[in-house]
C-alpha cells in the first residue's frame, strides 16, 4: 500500500504547490484587471484639455450607451444617431452598446478610461456619477469647453446635479423620477380615491388584496441594489430626514426620520400591502408584476406607463386601467410626496482625440431635434425646459402631465464616496426589509457604514 501511495503523494504534493499558485492567480485576477492602466498614460488629461474647444463638423466618434428602448431599426440610440448623421454627414458615430447594469457599466468605463483608452469618446452615464468621475478625472469637465450659455436650456436642478467642485461634468440627456402608478378600475370597484398618503396607500392595498380583486397591493424596488436607495430616499425625505449634511462630511442616517422610513417600508411587507418577495424586486420584477395585472399600485420610473400598456413590452393593461400620480407622503406632511431623481447624462472621455466632434454630438443631443425624439417617440422626460413645456410633448404621454406637479429629491451623490454611501444604505435597508435586523439597528448600522465611507480618504473604503 505504501508503495502505491508514495509516488502519487509526491505528485500530489508538487501539484499542490502549483495549485496553490493557481489559487493566487485566480483570486488576484479581480484586482489585476484594475491594474492594467498602471503604466499607461493616455493623451490629454483634464488639465491639457483646450480651454475653449471649437466644435468640429467632421470626424468619427464612438458613443457608449446602454440600451434605452426599442430594438433593431427602432432602437432609440440608432434612431438618434441616424438623425444626427443626417444633419452632420461628415461625423460618423459608432455605437458601443454598454451593459444594462449600471455598476457593470461604470466598472467597464472606469477601467477603460483609467487605462488611457481614447474610446469611447462620448459615454452615457448615470446622474450619480459626476462626483466620482470628476474626482478621478474620468470625465472631461464640460464647463471648461462649453460656453456658460449652453447650460441655461436645462430644467432647474439638473446642471447642479452634474456639477462637482464648480465644474459641470455631464450634459443632461434625459430625466427619470419616481411616480405612483395605480389601477383605476380596481380603485373604482372599491370606491377608493387615489392615495395621497403612505398610510392610505398601505390600507388601500390591504383592502384590495383582501377583497380578492388583485394578488398583491403595492410593488416597488426593494432588492439589495441602487434602486432601493432611490426608494428609501423618497420615504426619508417625506419623513423630513436627509442622508448627510450639506457638505457631505457627516452621515445623518441614524435619525428619527430614517427609522420612521425603514419602519414603514418594513410594515408594507408585514401588513400584507406588499409581497414579501418585494425584497428581491428590481424595476423589471416590479414592472412585470404590475403590468401583468397582479398588483394594484406600483412605484416606478416614467417608462412604466407605456410599459404597462404596451403588449410588446409585456404589459397586459389598457390605458383606461392605468393611472399615474405623484408619490404619496406621510400623513401630516405637505403634499405631494418626494420623487427621487434618476436619469442619464452624456460625458466626454478626457482622452478623446475628437473633442470637437464629441461636443457637436453632445450639444445636438440636447437640442430640440434629439429631445423631441426621446420624449415624443420614446416617452423619456426631456431635460430641456422648452421641450418639456411644449404642448405636443405634454399631450404625447399622461406621465408628462404629472411631471410639473412632482417634488424632487436627489440622492446624496455630491461626494466621490457616493457608491459606498449608497451601498451602506441599500444593504442595511434590505436587511431590515427581510426582517433580519430591526429598523433601528439597520439605521445605526447604516450610519456607521456611511460614516466610514464619508470619512475615508481619496483611496476610498470597502
Amino acid at each position, binding site marked *: *500500500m505504501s508503495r502505491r501511495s508514495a509516488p502519487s503523494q509526491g505528485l500530489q504534493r508538487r501539484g499542490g504547490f502549483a495549485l496553490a499558485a493557481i489559487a493566487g492567480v485566480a483570486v488576484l485576477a479581480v484586482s489585476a484587471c484594475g491594474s492594467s492602466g498602471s503604466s499607461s498614460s493616455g493623451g490629454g488629461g483634464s488639465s491639457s484639455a483646450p480651454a475653449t474647444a471649437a466644435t468640429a463638423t467632421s470626424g468619427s466618434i464612438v458613443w457608449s450607451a446602454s440600451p434605452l428602448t426599442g430594438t433593431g431599426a427602432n432602437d432609440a440610440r440608432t434612431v438618434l444617431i441616424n438623425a444626427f448623421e443626417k444633419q452632420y454627414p461628415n461625423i460618423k458615430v459608432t455605437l458601443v452598446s454598454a451593459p444594462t447594469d449600471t455598476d457593470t457599466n461604470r466598472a467597464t468605463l472606469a477601467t477603460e478610461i483609467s487605462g488611457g483608452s481614447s474610446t469611447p469618446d462620448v459615454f452615457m452615464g448615470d446622474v450619480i456619477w459626476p462626483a466620482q468621475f470628476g474626482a478621478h478625472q474620468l470625465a472631461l469637465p464640460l464647463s471648461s469647453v462649453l460656453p456658460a450659455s449652453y447650460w441655461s436650456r436645462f430644467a432647474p436642478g439638473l446642471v447642479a446635479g452634474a456639477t462637482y467642485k464648480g465644474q459641470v461634468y455631464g450634459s443632461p440627456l434625459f430625466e427619470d423620477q419616481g411616480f405612483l402608478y395605480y389601477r383605476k378600475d380596481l380603485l373604482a370597484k372599491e370606491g377608493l380615491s387615489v392615495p395621497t398618503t403612505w398610510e392610505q396607500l398601505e390600507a388601500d392595498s390591504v383592502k384590495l388584496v383582501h377583497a380578492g380583486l388583485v394578488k398583491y397591493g403595492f410593488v416597488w424596488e426593494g432588492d439589495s441594489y441602487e434602486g432601493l436607495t432611490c426608494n428609501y430616499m423618497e420615504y426619508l425625505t417625506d419623513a423630513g430626514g436627509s442622508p448627510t449634511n450639506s457638505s457631505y462630511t457627516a452621515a445623518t442616517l441614524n435619525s428619527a426620520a430614517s427609522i420612521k422610513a425603514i419602519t414603514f417600508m418594513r410594515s408594507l411587507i408585514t401588513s400584507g400591502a406588499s409581497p414579501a418577495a418585494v425584497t428581491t424586486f428590481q424595476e423589471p420584477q416590479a414592472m412585470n408584476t404590475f403590468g401583468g395585472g397582479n398588483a394594484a399600485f406600483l412605484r416606478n420610473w416614467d417608462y412604466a406607463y407605456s410599459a404597462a400598456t404596451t403588449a410588446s413590452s409585456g404589459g397586459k393593461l389598457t390605458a383606461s386601467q392605468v393611472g399615474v400620480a405623484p408619490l404619496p407622503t406621510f400623513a401630516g406632511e405637505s403634499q405631494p410626496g418626494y420623487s427621487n431623481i434618476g436619469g442619464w447624462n452624456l460625458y466626454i472621455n478626457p482622452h478623446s482625440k475628437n473633442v470637437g466632434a464629441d461636443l457637436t454630438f453632445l450639444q445636438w443631443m440636447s437640442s430640440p431635434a434629439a429631445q423631441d425624439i426621446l420624449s415624443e417617440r420614446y416617452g423619456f422626460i426631456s431635460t430641456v425646459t422648452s421641450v418639456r413645456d411644449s404642448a405636443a410633448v405634454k399631450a404625447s404621454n399622461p406621465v408628462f402631465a404629472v411631471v410639473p406637479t412632482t417634488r424632487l429629491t436627489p440622492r446624496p451623490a455630491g461626494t466621490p464616496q457616493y457608491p459606498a454611501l449608497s451601498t451602506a444604505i441599500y444593504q442595511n435597508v434590505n436587511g431590515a426589509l427581510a426582517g433580519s435586523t430591526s429598523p433601528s439597528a439597520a439605521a445605526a448600522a447604516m450610519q456607521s457604514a456611511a460614516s466610514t465611507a464619508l470619512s475615508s480618504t481619496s483611496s476610498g473604503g*470597502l
Partner: protein
Amino acid sequence: MTALSSTPEQMVAEPKLVGRPDVNRQRLARMGWAFTAPALLVIAAVTIFPIVYSVVMSFNNVTVTGNGFSLDGFTFSNYNLLIHASLWRDALYFTLYYTLITVVVELVIGTCIALVLERLAAGRGWMMALLLIPWSMITVINAELWAYIYNGTYGVADYILNALGLGSPVILGTPTPAIIGLMIADIWKTTPFVAIIVLAGLVMLPGDVYEAAEMDGASGWYTFWHVTLPLLRPTIALAVMFRVLQAFGLFDLPYVMTGGGPGTATQSLAILAYNALFKNLSFGPGAAVATSTALLVLLGCLATLRVFRAQVGQEGS
C-alpha cells in the same frame, strides 16, 4: 522527477537517461528554456506583473485618475481598514463556512455517484454525459436558472414549498434560505466534477488488493472503509483542492442570484473585492481584500495537503 519526500521509502527513482552524457543533457535543458522563454514572458506580462502590482497596490494609498494609478507611499492602512471592517469579517466568515459546507457535501455525494458509476455495466458513458451537463454550463446561466426556480412570485421552489404546506418563504430575500439556496445551486453544479475525479481514481485502483480482501472474507462495507477510501485519499485530496480553490473565489452565483443580499448575508470576499474595486473605485482596500484572500487560499491549500499527507503517511506505516 526529483524526490521531494524526506522519508527514504517514499523516494521516487530518477529516470535514467541511457547513453546520454551530461553535456547533452545541459544542451537540451538550454534549448528547453529557449523554446519556452516567449511563453514565459507572456505569462510574466499578463499574470505575474499584475499580481505583483496588486500586492503593491494593497500596501499603498492608491488614487485612480484618468491617467492611471498614482501610488503614494507604503502603508498598512488598507489592511488596517479590513481588520476593523465588519463587512470584511462577515464576508470572510461567509466564504469560509460556505466553502466548508459545499465542499464536504459535494465530496460525499460525488463519491457516492462515482461508486455507482464504477459498478454501472451499461450506459456509463451516457450517465456521465448527463451528469456533466450542470458542470459544463456557464455559471452565470446556472445562476439565472436557479434564480428563476427560487423566484418569490413565480418560482417553482416557492410553489413546491407552498404545496407541501411549508409556507412561501422568499428564498433569495431571506438570509438563511438564500444561503442554503446558493449552496444547493453550487452543489448541483459542481458535484459531477468531484464525481468524475473520484471515478478516475476508482478506475485506477489495483484489482489484486480487492481480490486479497475478498479472500480474507472482508465485507463490502469493510472493504470500502479500509481499502477503497484509503487508496482514494490522493484523489480526494486533489478534488478537495480544486473545489476549495473554486469555492473560496465564490463570485458569480451570489453576484447574479442575490447581489450579496439580503443585506450582506451572501457577500463573499470576491464580491466585496469587486465592490471596492469597481464600484467604489477604491483600489487600495480592494487590492488588500484580493491579496489577503489569495493568501488565505494558499494557506488553506497547504493545510489541506498537510492533513491528507499525514493521513496517507499513517496508512503507510
